[in-house]
């Protein structure tokens, strides 16, 4: 294995933050040199985060793919400006992706700052979501899609992508306290939507996982 990829694929491990910085710097330099292995490694590492975030914020899988491609084109062009001391590579890439999503939402005329008003009724959320009775997954997706955009983004980063709170807050460019507020409001709205409408989905799920804690 080539040195750059050993750093890329290995966890920071004993090096801690220093090791992480060295690994991110090596990967960024590899991309800057045009090293195809480094390009593939960065793509593999960041693409799930980018597509997940874009699909969650835009609620349109085709547009999310467009944003993913635009994001990486910007990454290739700007990789020399990346500073590993300031942010993890994923954080930097995700911020580029999220800003592109926000641009698209603005062009659609969608508000970005209203964090408490659901953007859609759960039953209208997403053209691909139909609420067939008993289709729990679609109901949950619809309930998430109905949340305000920043709550969706916060949930995507913390729950689905499992970023740490500091990293997620950095992607959203907010404080950790503001992140916790977004998450709590989002989860509270979801709980209400899934408990009250069409029967109590949460109770049903609990009954189906009786032995799990």
């Amino acid at each position, binding site marked *: 294995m080539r040195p750059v990829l050993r750093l890329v694929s290995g966890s920071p491990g004993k090096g801690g933050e220093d090791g992480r910085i060295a690994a991110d710097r090596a990967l960024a330099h590899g991309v800057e040199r045009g090293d195809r292995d480094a390009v593939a490694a960065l793509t593999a590492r960041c693409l799930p985060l980018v597509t997940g975030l874009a699909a969650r914020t835009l609620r349109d899988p085709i547009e999310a793919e467009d944003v*993913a491609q635009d994001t*990486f084109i910007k990454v290739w062009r700007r990789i020399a400006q990346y500073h590993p001391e300031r942010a993890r590579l994923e954080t930097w890439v995700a911020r580029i992706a999220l800003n592109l999503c926000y641009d698209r939402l603005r062009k659609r005329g969608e508000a970005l700052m209203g964090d408490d008003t659901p953007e859609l009724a759960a039953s209208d959320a997403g053209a691909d979501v139909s609420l067939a009775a008993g289709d729990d997954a679609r109901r949950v997706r619809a309930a998430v899609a109905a949340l305000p955009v920043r709550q969706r983004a916060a949930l995507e980063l913390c729950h689905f992508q499992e970023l740490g709170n*500091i990293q997620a807050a950095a992607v959203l460019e907010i404080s950790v306290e503001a992140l916790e507020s977004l*998450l709590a409001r989002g989860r509270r709205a979801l709980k209400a939507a899934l408990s009250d409408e069409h029967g109590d989905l949460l109770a049903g799920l*609990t009954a189906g996982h009786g032995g799990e804690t």
Partner: protein
Amino acid sequence: MMMLERFAALCAAYGGNLERWPQAEREAARAFAQTTPEARDLLTQAQMLDRALDQARPAPASDDLARRIAASAPASVSARRSTRSAAPRPAWAAMAAALALTVGLGAGWFGGAPAETGDMDLYADAFGALDESAALELLEDA
């Protein structure tokens, strides 16, 4: 020491899996949950929502998309940048830059009133807000 109020706030934000909680508070929360029935109830409630949310996982990116993205990377960013910097500049560019510098310095020297307070802070704030990507965007858009 973890208190129930903080435990409830963390549970409301991060859910019922302690691995998703802030690293700095995780161990204290784990110990608190072992000794506090109310905390365990909160975790159980949050785990119900976690399981529901797990059904809304995003679809994985396609292999085709990953291939297209990897193929969109230039052979060498450094090479492209050095090519761009080696491009011939018009002869008048240096003269125009010198003229702009002279006019700017002159205007600043003779026309600028001394700032009373806080100018350096203003400059620091303005340029501090420009991260590397934003700065590059401005350059690219220019």
